[in-house]
């Protein structure tokens, strides 16, 4: 036990652990100090200066986020010096910020706007600086819009891109009044190493970084009577959406979400979880085929470990940074794109619809999905497979626009044909979920027995450790898989691109002996995606993960190969995993990209 430090905050004594910052000590004592550049996911920057406090005996004010408590410190968070300075700093930030709030996508969810509202700075007579800068809005990316006129230079995005993702697409350039957040050679975001994961958006306090939204296009499609609008929803959306609509973190709203989508006017509401299950069938079979090629046929062209391919942010990352490792990627499309390809083929045929009239919309916890849908190879159906991708946040906006009283909705089930899912599909939303789902199916396929974990819960691949490892010994396999007898299947799970990079480095150096690795671009997996509600923090990710596993535990079916609609689609349409039709519709290829 280390000795606690005694301090006083606004005259009240508090005891805190050594090393506690003034910001955290104040929060423990029930005093909220405002912050902008501070974020729980990131290292301390101390550059916005909004959190300044006065410490008795010190000439200058200190940033509460960056100052550790010391014995007998007397801290004032609301002295006249602090209040005057803090107000003036907020006024300065507003003077360089394009505060055209009513036309901003972040109107109502902007941290600077919230501060302005809390501090009520009614006389703002600093000179407006925005007109003196030659700002242009970068709209070239299908995922991210960057508007420097709204940037307050807190560098949360820069730290996110470097620390959480290890990508460094965003960086600080220039100094003084010209200092800004930009990219390599100030190129558009679309032309640099950006993975489009959207973590920068999720960490931006203002409207400087937002998703490219397709709300109007989706409303137009719904209103168009000649169109049949199909929507799919990703696993992580149902456990995040409630946060945007007045519920606390960790509430599952699957049934209400389906009901809301129906009320918005979508013609069919189906589930990406269905194609998540389908992904497991294809990817699991691909894994076994690869294992056979390597272990039995000794085919040098087949690469292990096989890497998952459901996370489009991860895909773009590896295309940029490890372009010589693309043949390690599973050729399976992500569940979103599998769904898109099937919506305009299998679904169209079953419902007797002209695929030309189908508009395929997806709701994703993700901004990289917007980029993925725009990839030229994603036209397997003969049309663009997924027309519009909405984030969880955009769906919440549409629900509010439609005046739907979300909490009063009756829960309903997804539409049939591609609306059935198992618990294995649901856990795709959490880091380790794809791995767990794959092991549940692959182990049973090979041995005829359940995966050897209590209640099918593959605990070693769960949790928030950056890189998780698991191994599973295959014993007494079925005759067809005899070559796997005694093989210890080695798996790893990485989430957050900085961790993905670590695993890739170990693969490149030849130190890893993995057979199968799950990679997710975002910390926590899709539940912490760039399109999820803001804020997202370590605690929030944990609660969302608990919700996902609770959803899984409550499902009657928990293994992808049990999904009756998956069984049906193979019977009626695809024949078997890795069939020619599967190859055409459900598999893809990758493109090497530049490193900058």
């Amino acid at each position, binding site marked *: 036990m280390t000795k606690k430090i005694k301090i006083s905050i606004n005259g009240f004594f508090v005891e805190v652990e050594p090393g506690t910052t003034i910001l955290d000590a104040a929060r423990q004592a029930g005093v909220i100090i405002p912050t902008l550049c501070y974020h729980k996911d990131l290292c301390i920057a101390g550059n916005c*200066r909004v959190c300044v406090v006065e410490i008795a005996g010190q000439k200058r004010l200190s940033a509460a986020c960056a100052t550790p408590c010391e014995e007998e410190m007397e801290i004032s968070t609301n002295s006249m010096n602090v209040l005057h300075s803090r107000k003036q700093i907020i006024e*300065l930030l507003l003077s*360089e910020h394009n505060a055209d709030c009513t036309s901003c996508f972040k109107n109502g969810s902007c941290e600077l706007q919230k501060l302005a509202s809390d501090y009520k700075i009614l006389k703002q007579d600093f*000179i407006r600086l925005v007109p*003196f800068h030659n700002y242009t809005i970068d709209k070239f990316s299908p995922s991210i819009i960057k508007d420097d006129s709204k940037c307050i230079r807190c560098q949360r995005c820069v730290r996110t891109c470097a620390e959480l993702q290890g990508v460094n697409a965003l960086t600080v350039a220039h100094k003084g009044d010209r200092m800004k957040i930009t990219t390599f050679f100030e190129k558009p975001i679309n032309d640099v190493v950006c993975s489009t994961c959207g973590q920068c958006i999720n960490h931006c306090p203002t409207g400087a970084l937002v998703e490219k939204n397709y709300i109007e296009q989706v409303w137009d499609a719904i209103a168009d009577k000649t169109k049949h609008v199909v929507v799919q929803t990703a696993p992580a959306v149902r456990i995040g959406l409630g946060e945007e609509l007045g519920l606390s973190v960790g509430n599952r709203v699957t049934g209400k979400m389906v009901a809301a989508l129906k009320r918005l006017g979508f013609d069919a509401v189906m589930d990406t979880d269905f194609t998540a299950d389908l992904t497991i069938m294809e990817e699991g079979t691909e894994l076994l085929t690869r294992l056979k090629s390597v272990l039995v046929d000794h085919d040098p062209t087949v690469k292990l470990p096989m890497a998952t391919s459901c996370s489009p942010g991860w895909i773009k990352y590896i295309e940029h940074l490890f372009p010589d490792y693309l043949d390690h990627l599973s050729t399976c499309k992500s569940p979103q794109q599998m769904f898109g390809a099937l919506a305009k083929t299998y679904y169209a045929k079953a419902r007797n619809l002209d695929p030309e009239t189908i508009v395929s919309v997806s709701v994703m916890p993700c901004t990289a999905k917007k980029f993925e849908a725009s990839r030229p190879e994603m036209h397997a159906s003969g049309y663009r497979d997924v027309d519009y991708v909405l984030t969880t946040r955009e769906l919440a906006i549409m629900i509010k626009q439609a005046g739907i009283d979300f909490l009063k909705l009756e829960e309903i089930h997804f539409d049939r044909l591609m609306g059935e899912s198992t618990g294995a599909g649901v856990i795709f939303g959490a880091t380790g979920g794809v791995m767990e789902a794959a092991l549940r199916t692959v182990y049973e396929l090979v041995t005829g027995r359940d995966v050897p974990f209590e209640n099918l819960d593959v605990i070693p691949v769960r949790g928030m450790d950056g890189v998780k490892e698991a191994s599973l010994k295959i014993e007494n396999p079925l005759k067809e898989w005899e070559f796997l007898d005694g093989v210890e299947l080695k798996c790893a799970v990485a989430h957050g691109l900085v961790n993905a990079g670590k695993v890739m480095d170990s693969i490149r150096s030849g130190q890893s002996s993995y057979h199968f690795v799950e990679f997710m671009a975002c910390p926590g997996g899709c539940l912490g995606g760039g399109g999820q509600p803001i804020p997202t923090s370590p605690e929030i990710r944990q609660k969302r993960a608990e919700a996902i596993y609770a959803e899984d535990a409550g499902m009657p079916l928990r293994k992808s190969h049990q999904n009756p609609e998956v069984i049906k689609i193979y019977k009626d349409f695809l024949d078997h995993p890795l069939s020619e039709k599967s190859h055409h519709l459900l598999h893809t290829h990758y493109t090497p990209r530049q490193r900058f």
Partner: protein
Amino acid sequence: MGKPTVINNVETLAHTFTIFKYGAKRFYDLGVQYSRGSKLFSVSGDTPKPGIYELELGMSLADFVEEFGDGDTKAVQVGGASGFLVPRKRFSETAIGFQGKLVGISLPTGGSMMLFNSSRSMFNVLDNYLEFFREESCGQCTPCRVGCQQLLRGIKAVKRGEKNARYLDKLLRLTETMKLTAKCGLGQSVANSFSSIVENFREEMIY
């Protein structure tokens, strides 16, 4: 390798040389109570003999101007753009040294002494300093990055009559905020030249 490293500037090393050559006593005998020895000064501006001079610490600014002025000295900027401007009426009460009466510690940092005669507009002087600060700010912290831009644009707006004279008080309050909250010495010291120029030559800022 885990050991502390002493980093000295050239001036310190040069002093070491003279102290070794002439002995500590001779060095100590120069200067006043807390400001011992001599120091190199860079003298510039309205002076017939600009250059680098070694002067005794504790010298009064009146003596300095007597030596280096052109007979028409209106003010002296002591310590560069981050230092203070001393108007003529304060020359005799100001000493150059670490513990000078008016400006104290910041006085000899760089040893920069800039003389201005009556042909100079103090508005232009301040404008020049602020342009320097606006550019030299690294841009990280809000008070310095935005503050410097506001100060520069602010004095121009007052001069042009776009802002009224009382706006200068808001800017003075802003420099106070910068002094209290800026992350490093650069932003914290903008207040020095700004307040000493605006307070002593307010009418030059307005008219």
